């Protein structure tokens, strides 16, 4: 096993993955050119970059649409998830009903609900895609928030009891701030799921204005470098959402030394 000295370790942690990525990209480029791989199989990185450059306005517009869908779903789903958790924390019945449901929901392909929503709402509505994202976001946020709200350290409970404090003052002072790191754990997970759901929901039909539909249409017209360009945009969007959530977490829970697992 190679040993990296602690000083070099930190920079290695950043440089190594970058080095791997650069090496992989180069190898990819060389491989495609050398073996004359047809684009339907694997376009060269240079071709993808070129397609991105040539189609920037369309890519940006599609990204904006998918981004908006993901954002609306993320916000609504998280708010609902936290509210439901606050209620569930006090009601054992609700907890026992919703937690197994959440486990089941995480096993099911929620994006498959997209065609159902397309029939329930008009075909020109934003709502089906946003609703899919909302549901996908709700469950992880709910589960993690319930976990956070139920975990009060016994010493804190004793302390507040010794102060003759209970009820809302107790919740405000101890339960809610203690739950915040857990809520963000759920939110981090949900932010990536939101983008994935927003993109994939379009594969099932409905309004075709986002990245998902562009990918399928480019692929079906055999414009593979363009299709990959849209995929790259989708990946960047996912990354942006995840990073934004990380930043928000840092701001809201400055006392956390590392992200809550």
């Amino acid at each position: 096993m190679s040993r990296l000295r602690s000083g070099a370790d930190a920079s290695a942690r950043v440089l190594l993955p970058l080095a791997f990525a650069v090496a992989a990209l180069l190898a990819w480029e060389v491989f495609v050119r050398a073996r004359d791989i047809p684009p339907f199989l694997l376009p060269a990185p240079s071709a993808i970059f070129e397609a991105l450059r040539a189609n920037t306005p369309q890519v940006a517009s599609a990204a904006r649409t998918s981004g908006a869908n993901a954002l609306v779903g993320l916000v609504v789903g998280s708010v609902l998830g936290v509210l439901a958790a606050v209620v569930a924390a006090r009601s054992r019945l609700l907890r026992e009903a919703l937690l197994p449901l959440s486990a089941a929901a995480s096993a099911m392909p929620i994006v498959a609900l997209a065609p159902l929503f397309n029939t329930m709402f008009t075909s020109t509505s934003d709502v089906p895609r946003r609703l899919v994202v909302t549901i996908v976001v709700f469950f992880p946020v709910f589960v993690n928030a319930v976990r956070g709200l139920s975990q009060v350290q016994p010493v804190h409970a004793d302390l507040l009891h010794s102060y003759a404090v209970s009820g809302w003052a107790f919740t405000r002072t101890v339960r809610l701030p203690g739950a915040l790191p857990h809520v963000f754990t759920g939110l981090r997970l949900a932010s990536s799921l939101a983008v994935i759901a927003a993109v994939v929901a379009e594969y099932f039909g409905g309004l075709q204005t986002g990245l998902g539909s562009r990918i399928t249409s480019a692929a079906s017209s055999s414009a593979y470098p363009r299709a990959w360009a849209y995929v790259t945009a989708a990946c960047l969007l996912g990354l942006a959402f995840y990073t934004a959530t990380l930043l928000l977490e840092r701001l809201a829970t400055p006392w956390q030394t590392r992200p809550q697992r």
Partner: protein
Amino acid sequence: MSTSTARTADASGTREPAVSVRGVSQRFDTGRGSVQALQDVDLEIARGEFVSLIGPSGCGKSTLLRIVADLVEPTAGEVRINGKSAHQARLDHDYGIAFQSAGLLEWRTVARNVELPLGLHGAGRAERRARVEELLALVGLSEFASARPSELSGGMQQRVAIARALAENPSLLLMDEPFGALDEMTRERMQAELLRISAESSTSVLFVTHSIAEAVYLSDRVVVMSARPGRIADVVDIGLGRHETAEAGADVREAPAFFDRVTRVRAALRGGPGGHPGVDDR
């Protein structure tokens, strides 16, 4: 500047004892039958007195402390604090409490942690700020007012917890092995600090510990308990002139009188039917 006589038990009876425990029994019903955690415990702590509870695991010392704090209701018996019921004393915030783990709220700064009871009980911002400054100076952590608990060592966190326990100037301090998680050197430093602080504030203290040396160093009286069922086996008067030892800064732990008291406590512990497992008698 008071002398050691003020520290011994108030025999005149003109003032109510700080804590009065009469006939307290506690039984816990577990899945496997019931456990008599405490049986018929009588104890009195005079004002300004420092009393330690020591005994093997299962002797009920922590349970007794929690009963005095009204965190647990006894199956029988009565507890009075400053003449009121324990329940009323808790509602009136008559005591400050410190646990083995500091229990600081990680999301608050040190200053905000110390002012926790003040804020919860409706003190204004200016009042809180002034009091926090006082308290942090008392425990020697003034420069750390805006630090977070995660940045502090265990000893420092406990000092914050003690400052917090003193926030409302309680006449009674309840402490459940607050130094148990610390290393020996830090522990000895903290013991000296606690003596100094409780002397300056003239607080009565009920202190639970595993360590004979700690009990002898800190207390006016050491209450030795035995297990199964939990009860008071013996009470050892220390009478080392506690106030003087803290002031003089002498190395009391080396004095012959100290060893004498330690021996007495150890004998009391061994003499009991519970034996002495779980007691640190170094």
